[in-house]
């Protein structure tokens, strides 16, 4: 089995009654490996959310194909396996939390996979632990803060042990602690469990630690590469985006002729460089 998600000439059009179809994605070709940490950025209406939803067959391409580990998302017989392989976390956790108790919410998906009670329990414990919710397992989700709710949404997906985790602006409701913990959790999952993370964000400092950044612009892949290269590209500004503060600092210091590593884009990298 091929461990990657592939988009082949994927086009998605939305049709509204009485008006011509609007093309949200246009002939996109992409390949995302099973162990990659990918940041996806672009203005609103650039096609990010459409692309995310294509990845697990929530929507199907109007033309072209989406393959998950070789399985076609248009093949109804594979839908269940594809949905298990590609977990989704959305912007607003309130829209995806349905159970009255935290641990029930996490157990829900595992129970639907027809696992033994002992295995369900093991996975729930693990998912709660890595999401930092072990102490809140008996609480009611509506009593949690926004950040805790989002971590719950992540835990509820992790329990299915997906190969890919797609997150559509998962931090827009989180405070700094919650954001830091979530990103750190995602990095650990990526490194230690070989879980692929595909994260959409408007905040460049959040995607800067990724190994690859994809910039969408007007429904096409406009830039695709390592963070430092993407941030420095003139096309980045043309896509209406601004590099993260640390990348701008690095550029400013380079322009002044300081001997600084041009790959520095995150706070940690800068601190390490200056304080080593």
């Amino acid at each position: 089995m091929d461990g990657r998600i592939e988009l082949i000439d994927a086009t998605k059009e939305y049709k509204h009654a009485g008006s011509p179809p609007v093309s949200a994605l246009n002939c996109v070709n992409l390949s995302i490996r099973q162990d990659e940490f990918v940041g996806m950025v672009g203005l609103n209406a650039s096609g990010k959310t459409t692309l995310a939803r294509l990845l697990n067959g929530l929507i199907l391409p109007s033309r072209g194909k989406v393959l998950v580990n070789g399985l076609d998302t248009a093949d109804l017989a594979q839908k269940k396996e594809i949905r298990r392989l590609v977990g989704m976390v959305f912007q607003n956790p309130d829209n995806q939390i349905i159970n009255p108790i935290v641990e029930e919410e996490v157990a829900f998906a595992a129970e639907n996979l027809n696992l033994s009670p002992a295995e369900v329990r093991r996975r729930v414990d693990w998912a709660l632990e890595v999401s930092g919710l072990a102490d809140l397992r008996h609480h009611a989700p509506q009593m949690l803060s926004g950040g805790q709710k989002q971590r719950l949404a992540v835990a509820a997906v992790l329990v299915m042990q997906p190969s890919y985790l797609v997150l559509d602006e998962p931090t827009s409701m989180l405070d700094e602690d919650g954001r830091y913990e979530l990103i750190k959790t995602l990095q650990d999952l990526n490194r230690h469990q070989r879980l692929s993370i595909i994260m959409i964000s408007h905040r460049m400092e959040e995607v800067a630690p990724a190994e690859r950044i994809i910039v969408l612009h007007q429904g096409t892949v406009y830039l695709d590469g390592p963070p430092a290269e993407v941030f420095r590209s003139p096309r980045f500004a043309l896509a209406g985006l601004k590099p993260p503060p640390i990348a701008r600092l690095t550029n400013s210091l380079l322009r002044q002729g300081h001997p600084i590593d041009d790959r520095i884009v995150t706070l940690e990298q800068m601190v390490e460089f200056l304080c080593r």
Partner: protein
Amino acid sequence: MPVIETKELTHIYLAGTPYEKKALNQVSLSINKGELFGIIGANGSGKSTLIQHFNGLLTPSCGTVRVYGKDTANRSCRNELWKKVGLMFQFPEQQLFASTVFDELAFGLKNMGLEGWEIENRVEEALLQVGLNPKEVIKVPPLGLSGGARRQVALACILAMRPTILVLDEPTAGVDPSASEHILKAIKKMQREQQATVVMVSHYVNDLIFLADKLAFLKEGRLLSYGDKKTVFRDMAQWDVNDLILPEHLKLMHRLAAYGLPVNTEILTLEEAAAEISRVMEEWARCER
């Protein structure tokens, strides 16, 4: 002259149940006419609870809230209060319901008793204010717009009613940078040109550093500092603020100072941060020579 005044405001959710939670603890502050007042705090600090007291959606468990001198607990003032204080919730685009952007904006105006051309004028004006082109969006269903544009429509709905106090709960959370810029511009313009009082809650400190005239810092339901920006930032340094979204260049300077690098941490802009690091690196280069 204060237009909003809270005295020892305490709010307890679900009092008397096992879920009882004290969200606000003896908060006393006053907000003057024409001010842009920023409220900073992490999730769970009581920000949203506080501002929902400003138009009487919530009333205090203890203490008082006065808006234009009138106690918000007094039910007979409610109607007047709701007209004067426009409140925009978090993720307001989720409340959009009408079949076109025009109907969405007109809904509140019709309820105010306005008619015909007055409604049309106000709709057009409000859309322009938030950076949308009325001709392009007026007949579009709000749900056919992108997330950022929906937020702009939601803000326009409130601006169209011309409140004299505008209360905004995380107005830029989760929208793209360009929509966020339009929204912040509209807010600042409203304050400047119409002398509106604006209260804005955010955990993006960046949004408030340049925009706000005064700041309040809430943590776990307590008001730990309030007043001019410098005072509040100075006071904030005494507390654990890891749970706030500080701009990265400010965080960097704090981290570098903690490592013992001789950098000045009293800076606000990225340029100032670059100048500080540049100065330190030049000194290093001199020492090596």
